[in-house]
């Protein structure tokens, strides 16, 4: 591997701005948007019936604007350089900003170091998580009263759609983006991902997607929720084009991320890292990546049809034109149900990875845990029509989907069994990451059991589309994903950033979050039982006390997140107490490396000769960092 020398010595800021980086990307994105818009407006003939007749509100112009804008953004970041160099006959290299030379500047440009991409992901996804969280606060503000009072009906639905789309779209990669990119090479003993440029591409595509979604505010918003049901979407203003463009970019990013992680885990394992020695977190990544690779193409098909409906007037979803409203529902949920497991499964992996460390025991039932996660991944492709139980699909299908949906609780139960049995006779240390893992079990238990009610057709008749289902998926996704993200940030964060987090603030964060989360979402089950449908700006006035309670507790969640944010900024930017050694006493390979982890991770490739959880056995079985060769 040849490293290209990068000019020595710091350059002045204005010199750095010239070149391939985020700022050039933004500039070229704006240029691309203008070009796309200009081309699109050539198509806006008044004879075309369905197009919006407004100046500057032409669907073709908006979609082409996004397309050219994203291309401009990627070119500005330098993604075109390598393919062009190769086409001109230059030898293959892997040098983009991998060396230490450019310091913090690496974070604002195309960087193929998997640790840099992971931190980019962490901050990038975090920003959108905060925006979506603000949306949630605004939604709850509107629901303080049973009638519209702060935001209008349009703005409320836009908020609901933005909250859902941003959380589901951007946070899909919240574990795989930052954690898997950072951890997988270190855990399997590789110096990099299989496709480092694709790794960087997934991050920048996701950021482009987030910005595309935000532009919907200027285009009238989209009043369809994150599911974007058609033909309601066909009626939407150009704000709905932002939704389509957003999910298309997210879908491509997800597909590439899953593909890259699978390829890495299959091909880049160090000597001795057999499949049965793979840390269980990596198995969670395998299961999730498998879904990420196979589910989004369905979504992309649906999005393409939506785009064609809105530009070429194909009428895929218009019944009067021979289309079907089921088409979107089916395609969306063929993607959408694996998607919710894409969100949940990494959490399984994180919890099972952390429990052995804090219980000081090997993972109990390793094979069962792996089978559980793969089983969930496989089954999740066969359950999507439970979202359509009352929609009037072929009635004969419902018993099958009822069975397949409930069957998912069997492999999910494996995860619980392994978690519980790992704790049995352990030496449990109640650190903040451990508390988050225990909270995960509580949240996911409630989420899972409420899911049984939704998977059963007679019960689903009442709970479907109500606040009950809303509470259910917040328990599984927020309680399942967000809690495990925090567990991982508190656990691996110090290793990733090199600085220790303030533990007192972390404890305040955990307890306030856990308490407020349950006080917020448990009453929502009751609201659903009492007949409150989802996504409504008004509700019966007798539901106001409960709704006010939920809103106030939701503000508590918001404050708790501010504590976390303060802790993150304070610990990593201001106080900067360096991490020393291996504070958790973990036997994972990533903790045996120096802090900060060197650019090339390993001086020599490690050789594995034992399973990944050698707790309670002779210390000789620790993964050997020395010995063996490249």
């Amino acid at each position, binding site marked *: 591997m040849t490293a290209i020398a990068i000019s020595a010595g710091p350059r002045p800021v204005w010199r750095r701005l010239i070149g391939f980086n985020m700022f050039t990307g933004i500039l070229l994105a704006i240029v691309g948007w203008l070009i796309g818009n200009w081309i699109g407006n050539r198509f806006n003939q008044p004879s075309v019936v369905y197009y919006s007749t*407004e100046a500057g509100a032409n669907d073709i112009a908006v979609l082409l604007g996004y397309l050219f804008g994203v291309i401009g953004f990627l070119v500005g970041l330098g993604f075109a350089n390598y393919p062009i160099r190769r086409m001109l006959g230059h030898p293959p290299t892997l040098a983009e900003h991998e060396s230490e030379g450019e310091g913090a500047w690496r974070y604002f440009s195309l960087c193929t170091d998997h640790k840099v991409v992971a931190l980019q992901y962490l901050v990038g996804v975090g920003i959108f998580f905060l925006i979506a969280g*603000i949306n949630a606060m605004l939604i709850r503000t509107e629901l303080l009263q049973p009638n*519209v009072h702060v935001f209008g009906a*349009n*703005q409320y639905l836009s908020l609901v759609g933005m909250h859902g789309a941003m959380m589901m779209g951007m946070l899909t990669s919240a574990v795989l983006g930052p954690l898997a990119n950072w951890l997988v090479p270190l855990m399997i003993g590789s110096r990099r991902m299989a496709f480092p440029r694709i790794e960087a591409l997934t991050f920048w595509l996701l950021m482009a997607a987030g910005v595309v979604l935000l532009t919907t505010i200027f285009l009238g918003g989209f009043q369809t929720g994150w599911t974007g049901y058609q033909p309601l979407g066909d009626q939407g*203003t150009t704000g709905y084009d932002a939704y389509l463009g957003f999910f298309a970019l997210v879908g491509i990013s997800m597909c590439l991320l899953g593909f890259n992680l699978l390829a890495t885990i299959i091909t880049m394992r160090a000597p001795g890292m057999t499949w049965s020695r793979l840390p269980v977190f990596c198995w969670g990544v395998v299961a999730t990546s498998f879904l990420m690779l196979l589910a989004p193409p369905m979504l992309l098909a649906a999005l393409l049809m939506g785009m064609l409906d809105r530009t070429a007037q194909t009428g895929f979803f218009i019944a009067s034109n021979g289309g079907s409203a089921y088409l979107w529902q089916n395609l969306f949920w063929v993607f959408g149900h694996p998607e919710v497991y894409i969100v949940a499964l990494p959490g399984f992996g994180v919890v099972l990875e952390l429990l052995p460390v804090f219980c000081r025991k090997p993972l109990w039932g390793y094979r069962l845990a792996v089978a559980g996660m793969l089983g969930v991944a496989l089954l999740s492709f066969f359950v999507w029509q439970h979202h359509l139980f009352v929609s009037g699909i072929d009635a004969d299908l419902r018993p099958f989907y009822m069975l397949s949906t409930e069957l998912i609780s069997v492999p999910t139960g494996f995860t619980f069994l392994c978690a519980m049995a790992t704790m049995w006779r352990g030496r449990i240390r109640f650190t903040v990451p451990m508390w988050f893992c225990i909270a995960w079990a509580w949240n996911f238990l409630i989420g899972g059991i409420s899911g049984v009610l939704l998977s059963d057709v007679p019960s689903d008749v009442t709970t479907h589309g109500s606040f009950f289902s809303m509470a259910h998926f917040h328990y599984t996704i927020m309680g399942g994903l967000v809690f495990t993200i925090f567990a991982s940030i508190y656990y691996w964060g110090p290793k990733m950033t090199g600085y220790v987090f303030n533990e007192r603030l972390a404890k305040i964060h955990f307890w306030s979050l856990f308490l407020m989360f349950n006080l917020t979402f448990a009453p929502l089950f009751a609201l659903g039982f009492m007949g409150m449908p989802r996504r409504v700006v008004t509700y019966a006035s007798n539901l106001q006390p409960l709704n006010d309670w939920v809103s106030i507790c939701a503000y508590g969640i918001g404050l708790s997140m501010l504590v976390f944010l303060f802790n993150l900024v304070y610990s990593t930017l201001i106080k900067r107490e360096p991490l020393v050694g291996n504070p958790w006493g973990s036997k994972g390979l990533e903790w045996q490396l120096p802090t900060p982890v060197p650019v090339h991770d390993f001086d020599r490739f490690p050789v594995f000769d034992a399973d990944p959880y050698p707790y309670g056995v002779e210390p000789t079985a620790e993964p050997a960092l020395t010995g063996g060769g490249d």
Partner: protein
Amino acid sequence: MERDAQSGRARRLYGAIVATVLSCVVVGLYIGMYLTNASASASATQASSGTHLYLATVPAAEVNDNHPTWVSYYAVNADGSNWRHATTYDLPANSLVTVTIYQYDGDSGLRNPFISQSQGTVGNDFMLNGKPTQTIDPDTASHIFAVPQMGLSVPLQGVPDTAKNPCGNAPCTLKQDHETITFQFHTPGRGLYRWQCFVPCAAGFIAGWGGPMQTVGYMDGYIKVV
């Protein structure tokens, strides 16, 4: 060395404070964007003859409106002047209200012909250009003034395509071709009610249903009964 570390820390502290202030500003702007577009309100006029509300419907809003091509309701004076782009109407509770609508738009036709019969008005009918009417030809409907929560629904007939002096963008004058629809109804108790149009009248959107039909401030609004 010690001083370097301290000055570095101070720099980062200032940086964090500046970043916090900046993000608060950005968040404020972001929230502010959702607070826009509150539809203006207009009150019914009280006269010796009772409470009157005068409205107008036009094929296109004013030229300098955010959406100059969208159909819209307006609040006007009795003589058809003083056009205000308002779709929240304040009405007194438990009283008889007389609504007069000057309708300048052409016909579109209804998706559900059922709505071509007036409901919920006094006598279940309305005056179309001074003539008592109950139903109109569903294909000639231009707009509907409906408050579903009050059971109120009145069809507004379209100006024929043969009109000599049609109105385009608001504001229009009573000299231009229009239909005058008048009806009376009893307001219920206090509360916020929504009204809407039921005719797929949004030009440029699929099935005529999008844009102005889905945006409060054009073909949708509130009745605030106070």
